[in-house]
């Protein structure tokens, strides 16, 4: 189905089916929000809505990165490791209690570039060594955590950089700076996805890599570039977590990899690639955040959060596969 869509189907035809499918996640978001708002008076307060959106900031940035990888039909489990490494990097480069560095923005840039480097490493392992992406990124995640542990060196670096600290505290139009950064990331991600060759090819690779290769497109550089781009988003995510915590921790990215996959899948990005996108994922992020926040407000133990995400992923993937059950004979 996806193959024909990319190659022959004119845009108008695929639109009608797509718009129906695309409506699902936003409708679910509104319904779930309505249910929780009816159940809990605390949930529907303005403060809590601000909370939800602010809490979604880091996840939104990480999900932006992972969405590009998922669009290609690959998967990325490296977010936790990359975020840990970039969190430690930035906290050691801006003003902190461990050394005399005070690079400010430059330090943030270096941390993001480090994220790029890790992403590039995953991409190279996938393209040159032909290691399946979930294995390559699992390895890169471990490497990232190791690098972070090395930099941590037993003493927690607490940041004292005014700018980075202000990101999590200062508010503009009711939302934290971090939230605006996340919004900017979504915009940038959407522009890349919509208007650059990188974004278009990421779609095409997910839809029909063979066809793309046969039509003379050199796929490999784009694959590496997509992983590098994703790494940049994780790097920024690590910086944002550091700003929230006020310290660089190895565990900065714990759980974000899985939450981001959950958000992307719930938003309507298929794991098989070729469908979905940044805006879908943004809706997915809000869905996940509303669900986890709402469940806590209703009185469910926060320990269940991971379990809820796990169930959602399995359910969402299963639901997405149903239309193509007959086609997909082999599932690894």
């Amino acid at each position, binding site marked *: 189905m996806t193959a024909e869509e990319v190659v022959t189907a004119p845009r108008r035809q695929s639109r009608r089916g797509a718009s129906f499918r695309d409506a699902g996640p936003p409708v679910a978001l509104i319904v779930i929000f309505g249910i929780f708002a009816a159940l809990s008076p605390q949930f529907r307060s303005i403060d809590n809505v601000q909370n939800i959106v602010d809490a979604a900031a880091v996840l939104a940035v990480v999900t932006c990165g992972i969405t590009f990888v998922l669009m*290609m*039909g*690959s*998967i990325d*489990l490296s977010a936790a*490791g990359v975020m840990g490494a970039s969190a430690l990097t930035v906290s050691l480069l801006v003003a902190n209690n461990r050394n005399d560095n005070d690079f400010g923005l430059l330090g943030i840039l270096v941390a993001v570039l480090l994220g790029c480097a890790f992403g590039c490493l995953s991409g190279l*392992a*996938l393209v040159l*060594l*032909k*290691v*399946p*992406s*979930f*294995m*390559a990124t*699992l*390895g*890169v*995640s*471990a*490497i*990232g*955590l*190791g*690098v972070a*542990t*090395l930099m*941590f060196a037993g003493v927690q670096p607490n940041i004292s950089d005014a700018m980075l600290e202000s990101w999590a505290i200062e508010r503009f139009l009711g939302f934290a700076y971090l939230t605006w950064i996340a919004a900017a990331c979504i915009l940038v991600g959407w522009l890349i996805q919509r208007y650059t060759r990188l974004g278009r090819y990421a779609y095409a690779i997910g839809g029909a*890599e*063979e066809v793309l290769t046969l039509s003379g497109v050199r796929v490999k550089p784009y694959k590496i570039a997509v992983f590098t781009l994703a790494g940049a988003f994780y790097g920024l995510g690590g910086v944002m977590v550091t700003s929230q915590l006020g310290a660089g921790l190895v565990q900065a990215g714990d759980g974000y990899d*899985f939450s981001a*996959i959950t958000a992307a899948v719930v938003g309507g990005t298929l*794991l098989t*690639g070729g469908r979905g996108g940044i805006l879908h994922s943004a809706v997915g992020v809000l869905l996940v955040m509303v669900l986890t926040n709402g469940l806590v407000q209703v009185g469910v*133990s926060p*320990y*269940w*959060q*991971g*379990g*809820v*995400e*796990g*169930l959602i*992923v*399995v359910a969402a*993937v*299963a639901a997405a*596969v149903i239309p193509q*059950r007959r086609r*997909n*004979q*082999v*599932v*690894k």
Partner: protein
Amino acid sequence: MSTPVAVRPATEPATVKSGPRPVERLTGFMPLIALVALVAALTIADPDFLTQRSLTAAARTAAPLIVLAAGATLVVLCGGIDLSIAALASLSTVLLALWLPDLGGLATPVVIVVAAAIGAVQGTAHVLLRIPSFIVTLGGLSILSAVALVVSGAGTVRVVDDSPVKWLDLYVAGYVPMSFAVAVIVVALIAVVLKVTPLQSWISATGYSESAARLAGTPVDLVKIGAFCVSGACAGLAAVMLVSRQFSGGPTMADNLLLPAVAAIVVGGTAITGGHGSVWRSLAGALVVTLLRVGLPIVGVPSAYEQILYGAIIVVAVALTLDRSRVSIIK
């Protein structure tokens, strides 16, 4: 080490391929070479390493890892992967610690059966819902961790009376730790059962070419569910070993065993694409990983490098053992 290149498609002699490529030949012995090289290197670095005491300690550390890796190997042989083993083992330690006071000696088999059932549920979800195995087990990892946290109240559950699991701390013939002996017996048991039943060829067929296996009448779905079931049971047994050693259960106790277990499987030379490999290889792989773990501090490398090493090992070993002829597009 038996079964070096277990069941190649029977057409091997007929096709005029110049035998196994040098790389394949090398990867066939990779775990053994690595094992011998590691022992030699460690002995040179620290002559005290080859003493009975440190070897016994290393064997004891290796036991849970061997069991975990051996179980998950079956899933990998079928072409899938089980990322939930460590979380399942953690949950099992909690359950065992909670149930020991009430069930006593029965707690051990009950926990293993429950773990096997959880594995089977994941396998069924994978087969029936047609979800890729790594997503099912990634979801399972998340769910099982949550359950472990809730059941244990996010704290360590102490075991006051550990007599029902004490036997695992004994020594066979005074030297070999019982847990290590049990681990080797489990590996041997799996290997023998595979060998004497059609299971071996069913699993290989499923791993090498699932659609061909289906057409040939192999019960592919049942084989896969069975593999996940055994993987779960092994996670349960590993949990029993951990509890007997630590006198407690914890919701994250075994979580850091996931990477070493995956590393053990791929270092052993079991191809991640399925079909090629064996549980014996994973036994060797688990020993290699354990020696690295024990050996790094001996050589004077900070243990932070351990993670980096696992990451590098996984990527390199997968790259070496991957069967590229069968996958044209690697996602």
